[in-house]
């Protein structure tokens, strides 16, 4: 679907006309990310991150396919094959560092994309399905990133696999058999490495499929915008191409600058030195830390150090960690305020920023050893995280009195323009 004023695809060249009749693929692209897709005229740079996430996925798939041509998924040689890529394969060091840091860049842009969605209420009706598919993509990304981290078969790879698959042993009764089924043994070993490689290759394409659904679902109501007011008529929109292809292109340039700076100047800044030690099942590194993008969730896992009710500490930690993400599936219904953008939600905005600080606090705690004061700080952080979604948000969305809102996107844009021009003349 699109707005009635959307431009129509009218091929001029005979070849394109012929193709449009047989397989209207150019028409699909034109209507999805071309001039045929009308987009609110007031998007800010936070709306770049969807396209950037797509670019990051493309980079990961391309570098990943190339790495798989040189990597050997066997526990005896996997570590050495990664070193072979780093030292012997032509430009192998570049491709591997791009893949490693590409994963971090992917998570950075996806977290900013989620931040945008939360701040501007993009998860609300009529875009609930877009949000739900987004959470599915996020979960798939986490699974893919985890399995990818296991492949170099270093110490962090091995012990990360041991700890993460250990989550499943927390399930009562069937936990231990489930864990052995996942590992194909009693400890992570060759069977584990092989299946992780197989799935690590598969899942990015599953992500790509869900991304297409995500964009499809988005194009039904069209993009949200910083005012959160729905598009009313043609003057509220501009065609995606050339307006946002240009704006996204600029953003993509900045993204690539940061990406190559990271890749070339400090490729290991976000990694752990321990992963350059071959896996050893008899020695745990002194301090196991997941990759940075998992830290807030890891802190929630570690926050449970005591049994509570009839459930033991280990199961609580695992439930809370998975719950902290599963909670996002219910967000569109936990927040019942009809106002989308935080710009017009003075009360929600305060708690939202506290949540952002809280997630950083949890991330910091996730990096620390399991000692005081980090344990109590992660407990407080975890409590606030859950309270935000389960208590504060439902209450705030009922009692909050939103600020006066403009009648349309155009009115908001013109008012802003009048402000700046009067300030300029004054």
């Amino acid at each position, binding site marked *: 679907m699109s707005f009635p004023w959307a431009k129509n695809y009218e091929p001029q060249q005979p070849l394109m006309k012929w193709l449009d009749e047989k397989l209207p693929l150019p028409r699909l692209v034109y209507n999805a990310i071309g001039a045929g897709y009308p987009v609110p005229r007031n998007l800010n740079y936070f709306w770049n991150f969807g396209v950037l996430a797509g670019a990051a996925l493309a980079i990961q798939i391309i570098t990943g396919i190339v790495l798989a041509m040189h990597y050997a998924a066997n526990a005896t040689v996997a570590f050495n094959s990664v070193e072979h890529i780093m030292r012997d394969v032509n430009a192998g060091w570049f491709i591997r560092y791009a893949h490693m840091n590409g994963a971090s860049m992917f998570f950075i842009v996806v977290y900013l994309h989620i931040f945008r969605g939360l701040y501007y209420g993009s998860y609300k009706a009529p875009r609930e399905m877009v949000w739900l598919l987004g959470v599915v993509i996020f979960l798939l990304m986490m699974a893919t990133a985890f399995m990818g981290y296991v492949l170099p078969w270093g110490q962090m790879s091995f*012990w990360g696999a*041991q*700890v993460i*698959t*250990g*989550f499943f*042993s*927390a399930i009562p009764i069937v936990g231990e058999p489930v864990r*052995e*089924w*996942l*590992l*194909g*043994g*009693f*400890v992570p*070993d060759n*069977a584990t490495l092989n*299946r992780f490689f197989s799935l690590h290759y598969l899942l990015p394409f599953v992500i790509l499929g869900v991304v297409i659904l995500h964009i499809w679902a988005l194009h039904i109501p069209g993009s949200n915008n910083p005012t959160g007011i729905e598009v009313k008529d043609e003057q509220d929109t501009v065609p995606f191409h050339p307006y946002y292809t240009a704006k996204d292109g600029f953003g993509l340039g900045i993204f690539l600058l940061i990406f190559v700076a990271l890749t070339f100047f400090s490729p290991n800044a976000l990694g752990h030195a321990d992963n350059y030690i071959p896996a050893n*099942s*008899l*020695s*745990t590194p*002194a*301090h*196991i830390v997941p990759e940075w993008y998992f830290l807030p969730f890891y802190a929630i*896992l*570690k926050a*449970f*150090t005591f*049994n509570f009710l009839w459930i*033991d*500490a*280990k*199961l609580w*930690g695992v439930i809370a960690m998975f719950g902290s993400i599963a909670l996002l599936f219910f967000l569109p219904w936990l927040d019942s305020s009809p106002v989308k953008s935080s710009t017009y939600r003075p009360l929600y905005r305060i708690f939202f920023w506290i949540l952002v600080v809280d997630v950083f606090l949890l991330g910091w705690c996730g990096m620390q*050893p*399991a*000692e005081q004061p980090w*344990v109590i700080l992660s407990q407080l952080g975890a409590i606030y995280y859950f309270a935000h979604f389960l208590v504060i948000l439902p209450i705030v969305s009922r009692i909050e009195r939103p600020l006066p809102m403009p009648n349309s996107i155009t009115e908001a844009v013109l008012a802003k323009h009048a402000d700046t021009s009067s300030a300029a003349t004054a």
Partner: protein
Amino acid sequence: MASESELNAGIEDGVRRRDFINIAAVSFAGVGAVAVVLPLVNQMNPSADVLALSSTEIDISAIQPGQAIKTSWRKQPVFVRNLVAKEIAEAKAVPLGDLRDPQTIDERTKPGKENWLITLGVCTHLGCVPLGAAEGENRGDFGGYFCPCHGSHYDTAARIRKGPAPKNLVVPPYEFTSDTVVTIG
């Protein structure tokens, strides 16, 4: 095309022949699908060579009182520790009601060999190898083992005392084949 009367032929209590054929066909396909899924799921379980667990023999004659060694069984680390009298006394002094996973030291060692504490070196939280088996490592607040991953403390009978782990360190099946040799598995 079958006529209405042909389609309705053989109706008894509102059930048509066609309904039976539909249900039978879908059920048969369903059984076939399950039969195919089973091996696809089962292939992920530990394979025969992984399951063929050899037993491991350990010579404990060189382990002095107060010392511990780390060895392995089924690719999992095993701690063998020669407890001193003070450590046994400490373990015995703890009331069972204070324990998360109540077990006495006698239940966790062999009769007459209660100075030999043999456990898996696998934290029951998320499977890290706890510290404390080697000289100079952190033995935690209770003098046994300490898991650095998420801060679980085990006492001198390797019982969980503090931190997120739910269970005591697992005592594997083993027996003394002589005074100085232990067979695990």
